């Protein structure tokens, strides 16, 4: 079935083959190979995820036991946990940096960076990205952004503490809180590096997908993963620059004394000279990026789960075109909903109504996707691989977290729910857990492609069940706190009478969070152990149709020896009636599958239909297939 042709007559040497000599540095560090860059993104993303999870455990400890001393905290954190109790300033830094790392470094760079880099060239049939150099630069900007962000833990005043949305004036007036000082400056530098990295990556992905597809790979033959990465990259290109615009104005406010976002501020007895600006304008610019950003986070995960669910249900994805159109719908809608983060800023109620309607319309494409996942699973020959479990987990979180989005998108309900734990519960399920599960599904599924070895399935199951249960135990109770009006980002619940009754729930949630964190040890061990000791991966371990599994297990620069395979069909011909195997890779021409071809396979090509009809007359179906 292989259509890879080896043209040995091309075997003459070229003088300009400089990249034959691979050194340690060019192979592992400043690599321009998309597969290596994908691994760099993944491992950096995993390290950042572990750090961000560690931060969350620290502030969960504070929330659960606000009156207890933990001497070991002082050992690790020094003056930020004097006497073994986390200081309130540091608590704010913890939640801020946890959010920033998770949203940007793990779920944007770690997810898109890893899988767009790995899968775009391999699944569309390209040798590498449009610009391997920009691609390398994209990783190193990301890495530097991580270093700068983590560096802010090692300065006197600590990291940025104004929340991951860095609303002014906390983020601008350097003396407002300790975190508004150097830590905030580092946050801004880190974000600019990160946005540069994202743009270089995104621009590269879009150009590669539009210009470098192999023969036969038209847009409607692309796997849904590629569609998702494509639309994600477009979202990034269209929204990140707006954040840059906002950040530039913020930097001028911070460092040069302009008043883009500031007005009428009194610090103690000191009246600040800034006049005429408006902090609300920052919110507009921030959320014009910020809302598309949450789709930048979830869409690659949705694409990955489409692929994983279809492969492991051994069924074509239900409603391929509907899946693509719903992704496009989400992409377009994401730009006109940012105001739903700002319902309580004194927005004109009419405008609030408009944003409410656009927000609620997003339920439509989201529901289309959800039902299509369920319909794909329905009566499939399901193979419960760890990747499949995580993909199903994503669907579960997407439903349970998505439903509360309908509450929050409602401008009048939001008056009560705004800035409460209800919001925390909502986005940790729908975007946090769902996207992380999509990412983990991708790691388990494409690990053989990345490292040429298999991960241990049993540890995978352990990892899945512990994480899945713990995630619900952590985030589900938070809904009830929110409904009771408990605000987010509060340091301790002991100071407010109405919040005291939730202390026991906080203890429970913290134990669940610790369980979730411990469950990741199973993953980390499995991941790093299998790189060296895992079972050797076969060519196509999941019996999948997409192009990446036709490339040799051993990585080589340029992905395929000889010519790039040609594509003849869509990627979802699983369990096609009349064919002997339950999958037909994209590289198999219809002429080799005469017994299973259907009229619509030929897309109106009359000659091909005629050939098919002639063949069917010559080979009548004799056995009764039942």
């Amino acid at each position, binding site marked *: 079935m292989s259509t890879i042709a*080896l*043209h*040995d007559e*091309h*075997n*003459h*040497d*070229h003088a*300009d*083959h400089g990249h034959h000599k691979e050194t340690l540095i060019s192979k592992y560090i400043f690599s321009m190979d998309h597969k290596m860059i994908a691994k760099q993104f993944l491992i950096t993303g995993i390290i950042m995820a572990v750090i961000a999870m560690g931060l969350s455990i620290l502030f969960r400890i504070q929330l659960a036991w606000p009156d207890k001393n933990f001497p070991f905290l002082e050992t690790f954190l020094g003056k930020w946990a004097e006497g073994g109790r986390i200081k309130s300033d540091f608590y704010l830094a913890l939640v801020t940096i946890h959010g920033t790392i998770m949203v940007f470094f793990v779920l944007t760079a770690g997810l898109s960076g890893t899988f767009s880099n790995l899968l775009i060239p391999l699944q569309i049939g390209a*040798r590498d990205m*449009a*610009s391997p150099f*920009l691609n390398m630069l994209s990783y190193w900007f990301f890495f530097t952004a991580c270093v700068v962000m983590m560096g802010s833990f090692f300065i006197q005043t600590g990291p940025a503490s104004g929340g991951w949305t860095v609303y002014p004036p906390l983020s601008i007036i350097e003396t407002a809180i300790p975190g508004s000082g150097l830590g905030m400056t580092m946050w801004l530098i880190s974000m600019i590096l990160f946005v540069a990295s994202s*743009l270089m990556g*995104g*621009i*590269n992905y*879009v*150009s*590669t997908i*539009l*210009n*470098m597809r192999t023969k036969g790979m038209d847009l409607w033959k692309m796997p849904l993963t590629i569609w998702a990465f494509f639309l994600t990259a477009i979202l990034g*290109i*269209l*929204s*990140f*620059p*707006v954040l*840059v*615009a*906002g950040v*530039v*104005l913020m930097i*001028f406010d911070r460092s*040069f*004394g*302009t*008043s*883009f976002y500031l007005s009428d501020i009194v610090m103690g007895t000191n009246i600040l000279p800034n*006049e*005429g*600006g*408006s902090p609300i*304008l920052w919110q*507009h*610019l921030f959320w*014009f990026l910020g809302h598309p950003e949450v789709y930048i986070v979830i869409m690659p995960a949705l694409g990955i789960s489409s692929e994983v669910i279809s492969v492991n249900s051994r069924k074509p994805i239900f409603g391929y075109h509907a899946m693509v159109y719903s992704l496009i719908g989400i992409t377009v809608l994401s730009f006109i909903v940012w105001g739903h983060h700002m319902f309580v800023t004194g927005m004109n109620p009419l405008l609030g109504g408009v944003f409410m309607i656009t927000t609620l319309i997003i339920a439509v494409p989201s529901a289309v996707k959800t039902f299509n996942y369920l319909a794909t699973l329905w009566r499939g020959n399901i193979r419960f691989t760890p990747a499949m479990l995580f993909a199903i987990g994503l669907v579960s979180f997407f439903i349970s977290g998505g439903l509360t989005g309908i509450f929050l998108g409602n401008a009048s309900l939001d008056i009560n729910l705004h800035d409460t734990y209800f919001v925390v519960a909502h986005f940790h399920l729908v975007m946090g857990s769902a996207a992380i599960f999509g990412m983990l599904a991708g790691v388990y599924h494409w690990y053989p492609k990345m490292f040429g070895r298999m991960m241990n399935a049993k540890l995978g199951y352990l990892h899945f069940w512990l994480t899945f249960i713990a995630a619900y135990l952590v985030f589900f109770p938070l809904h009830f706190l929110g409904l009771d009006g408990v605000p987010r980002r509060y340091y301790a619940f002991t100071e407010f009478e109405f919040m005291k009754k939730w202390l026991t729930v906080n203890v429970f949630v913290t134990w669940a969070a610790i369980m979730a964190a411990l469950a990741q040890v199973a993953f980390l061990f499995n991941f790093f152990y299998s790189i060296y000791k895992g079972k050797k991966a076969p060519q196509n371990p999941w019996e999948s149709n997409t192009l990446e599994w036709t490339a040799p297990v051993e990585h*080589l620069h*340029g992905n*395929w*020896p*000889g*010519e*790039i395979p040609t594509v003849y069909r869509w990627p979802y011909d699983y369990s096609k009636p009349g064919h002997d195997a339950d999958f037909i890779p994209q590289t198999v021409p219809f002429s080799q599958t005469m017994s299973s071809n259907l009229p619509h396979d030929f897309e109106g090509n009359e000659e091909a239909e005629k050939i098919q009809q002639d063949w069917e007359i010559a080979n009548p179906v004799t056995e009764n297939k039942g």
Partner: protein
Amino acid sequence: MVLSMEKTQDIFDPKPKKFIVWLFVVSSTIMFGGFTSYYLVFAASKGKGHGLVLPDAFIYSTLLIIASSVTLTLASRALRKLNFSLQRKMLWLTIILAFGFGFMQFVAWGSMVKTGATMVGNNAAISFIYVVPLMHLFHIIAGLGFITSSLVGSYKNITLAKNKFRMEITSIFWHFIDILWIYLYVFLLLNR
């Protein structure tokens, strides 16, 4: 086997890379769209714009950058006719005009400072006239990088295909920042 694969790889295909430059143009447009929408919302909510008569130096800088686009077009045309020395002359001229543009921007800011319309003040719309053209000036510096790479390529006698490719991306980028400046200038003229 590995060598045969690299054969196909070595064919220089400028299309995807040119597309990258276009996408950069798109994202940069969005950034300036972000700035100008800040200005529009600010002006609408405060009921005032910058309220200035813009300094004449901005007119001169606009003329200079338009002239630089013309010389760059002439450089491309010279390359098409394989007249490399004219190409280099025109590229040098473009660089000089670009420096003239930058100089005029500073002259304009200087005359604004003299009239009291300083960057730091109680009207963010006036600060805008400093900050956003400054961001545009950073694009000019990047554009100078492109022009320099074309110029170096032309002096080093790189292959014609690569020389043309460098000229093309330089042209895309330079004409873009030219149009971008005209947009910003007209925007500031219209939104007092």
